[in-house]
Structures are given as C-alpha cells and as structure tokens.
C-alpha cells in the first residue's frame, strides 16, 4: 500500500482531535501571545535575556523534533543528537569554510541531517525497543567519532570556532531594528525560523499522516493489521525528526559561535530526552516548556553551585517517580480537576 492510499484509508481525520480534551482555556490565541512576547525580548530585556531566549528557542525545536519520535510515534531514540550534530556541522562547514550564505546553508543542514536520518533510520526501524535505542546510540557515536577525528573537515577536537553570523544588514532598514546588535537580530531570525518549523511539525502531527504515527505508537500490531507499512511510517517520522533536529543544530552552531565534537557526544541525547520528558512527552507544547524550564533552571542553579548535573539528576528522579506526565501533564491534570470542581 502506498502512503497516499494509507492516508485516505486511515481514521476519519478530525475524529481523534475531537475526542481529546482541550488542556488550556479556549478562545485565547496563546501561541501568538507567546510568540509576540518572545519577539519583544531584544527591546525589553537585557543582552543576557536575549542569549537565554535564543537557547530556549533552539532547544525547543530540538526537543520537539525528538518528541515527534518519542511522543508521537513511540520510538525511544538515544542518539537524536547525531542529526542535530550533522546539521550543525553541515551549516558550519558550508558557511565558514566555503562562504556559502545562510539562506542556502540552513536548508542544506536540514537536508543533510534528513539524509543521514534516512540512511541510519533505514536500519534502526528494523529493530525493536532496546535494540533500536542501542543502534541510534551507535550511529550517534559514529558521528561523534568522525567529528572528533576528521581534522581536515570538522576541525577534530578543536572544532570549528568562529562560524560567521548570517548577513542581517537588511534589518537596519526596518524601523526600530537599526540599533539591534547582530546577536539580537540573529535571535529574531531564529525565533521566526523555529516558529515556522514548530507550525510545520504541529501540522504534520495533526495530519492524517500524524494520526497513523500515533496509531503505530499505541498499537503497532494493529496498525500493521490495518495494512499500514509500519516501518515505512516510522522511517518517515525518523527522517522528518532528523531534518528538524538538523535545523536546530544549524541555528545552535551559529548562536554559540562554533561547532564542537562535544555537541555530538551521547550524553547530549540524554539531555534532550530529559527536556522532553520534563515538559511532557504526551503534549505538543511539553518539550518547549521543558526546554524553557531547563535553561532557566540551569542559569539559576549555576549561580549558586557548580553541581548542575546533580540537580538535573534529582529533577529527573522526582519526574520519573512522581510526575511521569511532566510539567504540562501535571498542569493539565490540575486544570481538569479545577474544571470538575467548578462544574460540580
């Protein structure tokens, strides 16, 4: 069965959406409010605020791309940082070594990461559960080994420092933008690119294709019985997730002024998993919330102590044993209870 046939055959499109309760008050364009609030940060906040916001926005995209696998398709990847890394290196090498403009290097980063996801995913989706996790880990370590050792191209353990910012001089022509630093301008560009990416991922999840992914997550045997080519769908999700992780990586490389082999080490995959779980893997806005809370907590905690990992581990323990639904899951539960109280 082709994808097109599967799409027309599967679940009446809107039915599943209708079944699901709304977790926030309706009628308020929350997404737009958050976007506008984030966009004003370069004017109302400090340079440091802009710096933190950049990190949050990029991490949010990375975590959302992972959640397309974890929350939507039910695949536990322990090597998602590989695609983030490929994107960062492709964009960094093109811009720094070959002087390619950002407008070409950025799409190339996503394509490169998606291509690598296609090759590695082809093998990964053949394996179940723990073996899948192990193989994704192996592929990410292969990327790490190449990044770490291929001095001529990746800069080896020295990495690729001083990746240029894209040329954003045109922003000077916009009223109110003239005084913004290049960092702030890049933040605004990042914010727009990430917002568009999130909208696309959201659309994908809500599309018939996304419904099939959810069906596969909930019951792969049944999905196969319905005639769905489970592996093909899983691979498609893997490639899309890899591509968006590549976009996040490309932005991160420019934001942090360099790409280094450390970015691709396996423990980074665990960090983005924590971000996703912290926010709530069952919700679209879970991972961005997780990213925001984690970045904010990180800067709060590191003011007091150098033992950030310890705090992160403790948070993870509380999460695993106390709040498996994450922050958004907890808030959702609270909201449902309040609503029931009001109705009673």
């Amino acid at each position, binding site marked *: 069965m082709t994808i097109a046939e599967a799409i027309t055959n599967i679940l009446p499109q809107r039915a599943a959406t209708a079944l699901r309760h709304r977790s926030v008050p309706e009628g308020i364009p929350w997404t737009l409010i958050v976007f506008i609030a984030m966009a004003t940060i370069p004017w109302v906040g400090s340079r440091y605020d802009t710096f933190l916001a950049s990190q949050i926005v990029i991490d949010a995209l990375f975590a959302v791309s992972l959640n397309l696998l974890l929350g939507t398709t039910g695949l536990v990847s322990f090597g998602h940082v590989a695609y983030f890394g490929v994107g960062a290196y492709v964009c960094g090498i093109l811009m720094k070594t070959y002087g390619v403009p950002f407008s070409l290097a950025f799409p190339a980063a996503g394509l490169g990461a998606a291509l690598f996801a296609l090759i590695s995913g082809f093998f990964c989706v053949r394996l179940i559960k723990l073996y899948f996790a192990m193989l994704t880990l192996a592929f990410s370590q292969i990327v790490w080994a190449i990044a770490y050792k291929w001095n001529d191209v990746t800069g080896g353990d020295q990495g690729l420092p001083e990746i240029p910012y894209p040329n954003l001089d045109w922003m000077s022509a916009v009223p109110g933008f003239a005084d913004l630093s290049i960092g702030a301008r890049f933040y605004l560009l990042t914010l727009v690119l990430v917002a568009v990416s999130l909208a696309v991922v959201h659309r994908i999840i809500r599309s018939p294709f996304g419904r099939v992914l959810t069906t596969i997550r909930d019951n792969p045997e049944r999905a196969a019985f319905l005639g769905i080519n489970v592996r093909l769908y899983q691979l498609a999700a893997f490639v899309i997730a890899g591509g968006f992780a590549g976009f996040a990586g490309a932005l991160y490389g420019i934001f942090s002024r360099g790409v280094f082999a450390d970015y691709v080490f*396996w423990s980074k995959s665990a960090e983005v998993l924590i971000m996703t779980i912290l926010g709530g893997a069952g919700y679209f806005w879970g991972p961005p919330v997780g990213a925001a809370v984690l970045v904010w907590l990180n800067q709060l905690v590191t003011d007091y102590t150098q033992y950030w990992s310890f705090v992160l581990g403790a948070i993870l323990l509380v999460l695993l044993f106390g709040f498996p639904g994450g922050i958004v899951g907890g808030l959702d539960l609270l909201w449902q209870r309040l609503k029931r109280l009001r109705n009673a």
Partner: protein
Amino acid sequence: MSPSFLFSQFMGGLTTAMFLFLIASGLSLVFGVMRVINFAHGSFYMFGAYLAWQAVQWLHPTGGRFWLAALLAAIGVGLLGALTERIFFRSLYGREELYQLLFTYALVLILGDAAKFLWGTDQLSVSTPPALAGSVQVFGTTQPLYTLFIICIGPMIAFALWLALNRTGAGRMVRAAQMDREMLDALGANVATLYTAMFALSAFLAGLSGALVTPIQSIVPGMDVLIIVQAFIVVVIGGMGSLWGTFWGSVIYGQVLSFGILIFPGFSLFSVFALMAVILIVRPWGLFGRPL
C-alpha cells in the same frame, strides 16, 4: 612491521579486552536477567576507582595494601548497587524501558557530581602493588607484570562466573530468571532477592574493575561516561546477556581497536562504533546471544 611489534599490539589489545570484560560482564548479567541497560554501570566503575584510592589513603598512604583496598572498594560499590536496586529500581521493573534508561541516566548525573564533590576534579593515581611492579621480556617486548596479571584475571573471572551460573543453585535460579521470570516467580522463588543480589554482584564487578584499573590509569571525572559506551559495544558485539559472548566481544573489541589504529590511523574509534552498528543491524542479539 616486526613480529614483536605486532605482538605488543596484540598484548595491548588483550589488556584492554580483559579490563572491558570485567566491566561489561556485570552489565551483561543485569541485562540478561532484568532486561535493563544500566547506564550507571560506568558510574559504579568510577566509584570503584575513587573508593580504591580512598581506601589506599586510609590503609597505607605510601602504597601497599592495594589488594585489600581494591576488595573494600568493590564491596562498597556492591553495597551501593544493592541499595540502588532496593530503594529505586524495584518500582521501575513494570515500567517502560524509557523510564528505566532515564533512571539509570539520572544515577549517572548524580553519582558523577557526587564523585566531584567528594574527591574533587584533580587527577588521582594509585601506585602499582609492589609484587607486580616489575616487568618481563616476552618475544622481545617489555610486558609490565601488572598488565599480565589483568590478562590472567579476565579468564579467571569469566570461569568463576560460568561456574557460579552453571554449577550452583543460585546460578540455576539466575538462568531460570533469564528465561522466564514470571514463571520463576510463580513457582515461589524469591525473585526480588535474586534481583537485588544480581544488581549487587554486577556493581561489585564494576567496582572491582574500577579499583584494578587505578594502577595503570589515572582517576578523573568523566571516566564513567567514556567507559560505559565501550562496555555497551562489547556487550552488543558478544550478545547482551551472554557471558561468553561478552568475553569474546571484549577480545574482538580490544583487537579491533588495537589493530584498527595501524590500518586506519585516527579512525579506530570509528571502526569500533561501526562494528557495533553492523552487529546490531545483522544480528541484534550479538554473535553469541540468543534472540529475545
């Protein structure tokens, strides 16, 4: 390339292999019985190293009493493993793999910082026990006695574990748990205690290998996350849950790393990860394991 050079590469690979076997055997045991991939195994290894250093400081600061220190360190880590299993892990057995993986990763984070807090971030080292401080000439190469000792202890531990698994009552229970833990539970066996004991034994082995590595490697923060990936590779190559698989997996890993450097300089790291990926693709249960 002279034969003696090749021989010394071979011996280097074998030393790496036997060290990794000590570490990976515990990882493999826990996987075989509990179907859990324990990221914290590397942290147990690191704690073994730090505790051994600490014990040497307490017992005999100028060196000596190394063996007693190593044993105490291994026992300490074994207790840590048992406590971890009793307090936390127990409630995660029925949960998804993701939660178990993330729990063991939480331990990595916490234990890693705990080690930094307790012992600082400076390199620490332990001197080689006097009895094994010398070296011998073999095939025109100089082999330190201590590495020969490591090469001997690997097969000894493997044989001891094999005996314990195949010739004792407790070993029979472990093998039964590997096959069908629900059935073992239903038959009235004390599976809970068995799991705690397995976890403790696994941590003990990790602690022991951490302690034994101290005379030839300095103790640094970060040794936990570096070693755990190597142990994963070994376990994957040989077959998760298979004792002899892990043994031969270590041997293969050591030799690929050792000779990979000669054939593709700079890409030996790549070659071992590629080997891991190829094995997972072709035979996910490893060279010597059984399909789940």
